[in-house]
């Protein structure tokens, strides 16, 4: 039986903390909580607890003890790890074999594997290598009924049964606790290089990004930021030296042909990636857009009085906009951006906002397609509704 201890930490609204030692303990804790109707919050590295409209829970379930590498066969290009493992530990284990898990989510230094999956936390590498949903090939999950269920497996191609892994990616802990995950991994690239482009206007920056995305030598990251009144394009490539050279040469040409100036790549992606980490004030809006709508939305964001920062993955259509200012303005501007995203066929959320804004600015301002089905799935997996109440887009 897992330990459940009163928690001394006065900051948290959670009364009890439980740290199950393994998957079975975790499942047992969940079934007990279900029976007693006690609500549960799941904590890995606690790096993304700002997500959603989470309410107070009776129990905080820490996954830190369910950690470690289960299996890694380098020649199979797969790795199986426990859900509470820090992503950084996985990276170190893989590096020894000259491999890497091509995920670069925010908070990567402290985030756990389970948290990255549950939050569908991706970075700028997504268009190049695939996102969490594409790299995750197997899971074991502790469910609210006390069972531990497996989906997928350790092979890179698998269509036996439904792909429950996909449901877990982005589920924000509302369906179960991810206790084990298997990912596809890749050999570490041999070479790396990059270019920085500077543009006067958004249209040119995003047009250059689009051309680079379609170019034969694929870039690893194509990011756009706004700095000192200019649009900054950051392109980085990793791979075999000849392809990296070609990618950078093509990128340089695409930037110049659109009137941009180029510069050596001096990092900066990390800073953009970690925007959620520092966006503790105001509101951080995160949008998922059709590729061709990106320039317009970015321009709109930058024109707002409350605009502070932009971090765009121009290869995937993901944009984060940090808005800071008077509360009324921040709320109105965040709503306006979400509305604009929907108008072009995208969607979005307020990913993070200042504590005082939580009551005024909900994470989601629209219902998703397929909400009825989502609700049925949630009820089927967590009939007592104990897991992460309020965390997901589903109406309570």
């Amino acid at each position, binding site marked *: 039986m897992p330990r459940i201890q009163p928690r001394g930490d006065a900051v948290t609204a959670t009364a009890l903390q439980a740290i199950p030692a393994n998957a079975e303990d975790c499942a047992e804790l969940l079934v007990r909580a279900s029976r007693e109707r006690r609500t549960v919050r799941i904590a890995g590295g606690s790096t993304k607890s700002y997500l959603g409209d989470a309410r107070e829970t009776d129990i905080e379930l820490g996954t830190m003890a369910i950690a470690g590498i289960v299996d890694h066969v380098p020649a199979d290009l797969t790795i199986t790890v426990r859900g509470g493992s820090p992503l950084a530990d996985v990276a170190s284990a893989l590096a020894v074999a000259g491999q890497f898990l091509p995920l670069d989510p925010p908070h990567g230094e402290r985030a756990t594997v389970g948290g990255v999956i549950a939050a569908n936390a991706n970075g700028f590498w997504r268009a190049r290598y695939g996102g969490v949903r594409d790299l995750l090939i197997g899971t074991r999950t502790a469910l609210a009924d006390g069972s531990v269920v497996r989906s997928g*497996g350790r092979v890179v191609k698998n269509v036996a049964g439904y792909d429950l892994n996909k449901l877990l990616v982005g589920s924000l802990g509302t369906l179960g606790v991810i206790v084990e995950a298997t990912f596809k991994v890749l050999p570490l690239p041999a070479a790396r290089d990059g270019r920085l482009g500077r543009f006067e206007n958004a249209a040119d920056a995003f047009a250059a990004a689009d051309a680079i995305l379609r170019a034969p030598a694929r870039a690893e990251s194509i990011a756009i930021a706004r700095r000192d009144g200019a649009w900054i394009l950051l392109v980085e490539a990793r791979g075999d030296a*000849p392809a990296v050279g070609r990618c950078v040469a093509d990128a340089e040409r695409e930037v110049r042909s659109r009137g941009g100036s180029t510069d050596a790549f001096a990092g900066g992606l990390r800073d953009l990636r970690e925007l959620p980490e520092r966006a503790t004030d105001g509101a951080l809006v995160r949008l998922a857009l059709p590729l061709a709508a990106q320039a317009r939305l970015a321009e709109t964001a930058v024109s707002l009085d409350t605009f502070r920062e932009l971090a765009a993955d121009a290869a995937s259509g993901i944009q984060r906009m940090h808005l800071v200012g008077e509360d009324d303005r921040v709320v109105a501007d965040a709503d306006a951006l979400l509305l604009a995203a929907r108008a072009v066929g995208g969607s979005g959320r307020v990913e993070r906002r200042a504590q005082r804004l939580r009551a005024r600015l909900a994470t989601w301002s629209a219902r998703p*397609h397929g909400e009825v089905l989502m609700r049925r*799935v949630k009820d089927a997996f967590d009939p007592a509704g104990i897991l992460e109440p309020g965390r997901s887009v589903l109406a309570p």
Partner: protein
Amino acid sequence: MRALQELLGASKVLGTRDELLVYEYDGAVDTATPDAVALPESTADVALLAKYCHEHDVPIVPRGAGTGLSGGAIPVEGGVVVSFARMARILEIDVPNMRAVVQPGVINLHLENATAPYGLHFVPDPSSQKACTLGGNVAENSGGPHTLAYGVTTNHVTGLEIVLSDGSVVRLGGKAIETEGYDLVGAFVGSEGTLGLVTEATVKLTPLPEEKRTLMAAFATMDDASETVSAIIGAGIVPSAIEMMDQLATQAVEASVHAGYPLDAGGILLVEVDGARDGLDESRARIEAICREHGARTIRVAASALERERLWAGRKGAFAAMGRLSPDYYVQDGVIPRTRLPEILRLVKEAGERHGVRIANVFHAGDGNIHPLIMFDLRNGPEELDRAKEASIDILTACIEAGGSLTGEHGVGMEKNCYMPLQFAPADLAAMRRVKESFDPAGLMNPGKIFPTPSRCREFSLAATR
């Protein structure tokens, strides 16, 4: 049938004995006759039909081109087969957003041809791509030779319009890479028609590679060929495709396609690298060197697009060429971690010997996705099929024991649903059933597929417990 004709119009319903016979089959070995066949022309037709079936408790079985290899389109519990032959339009090729919006009956190759002028393609390219439909690809989460580097169907679908068994129309996802809430598109792809009917799909289009290098290497033994596969991956090269073929398959292919594979080779590898032209020759040279180190006797590099097509024609025509060796064959689709290839291929051989059936192998070696083609001749009586099935159970059991899966791309269907308990514990299957019940509480969508059914699987469960 009359009621359906009144509902949809006489031209959209088939029901005579002769008409129904055509829909008894798909690409696998099982057959069953539908009670009626509907040929909807719009989402509204599909919704009407589903609503009718829901009210009258009639099973619905979707069908694309009928090329499936696990009996997915077979109405094993009767009901209406819904053919999407008349919903076959490409609705939009959205070049700026790199998406295509298609109806379910669009043929995979037609989409490829339509997008090529824009320098884009839909990546999954199953061997049946000349005939198979996008709706079927979505249902089966189809793969193909090039999935090693580029992923399978689920990695290339961002939006769906589906009709549920109660007739409601639901849109999921869209053109953006993700939407808020659960990834129901991801849950739906590969659900084999058991969750709903696809009436529209939004798929990713990917830039065509600038260039490709394709090489064929012939080895004395399958062991040499499979060790080469691990060595290529181990060297940090991720080719876009690594395909393997044994001697029996090679001989059949050569007799029908003349791809130029050496007849005396014990194992053949077809390896392709693609992308920017820069560095491709270096990759090709490294692969060639690895092949030689592992005893390749002959290596041929395609010098032109025509030669490449010829090499690929051998691979893609391999299943069809089996007719040269045997009137009937049964193809399996197990997956194993690729490092276990040599061992599993030996087990396949032993299974064939044990059950007295000839087995040819043509498969996606890079993914560890084997395709043993188990030959039999029904003219010699039904026991030949039984022996083929027994051999396949042995092979699938070995795949699962090696940490693999029953199926990599063909689906479970009605062919392997009884074997699902080999791979999944009751709790795992129960979790899948929760998804099934969320989408299709009435249980009318393609019944008798994926999940073991008590009536048809009793025999297998008994055999397994003996």
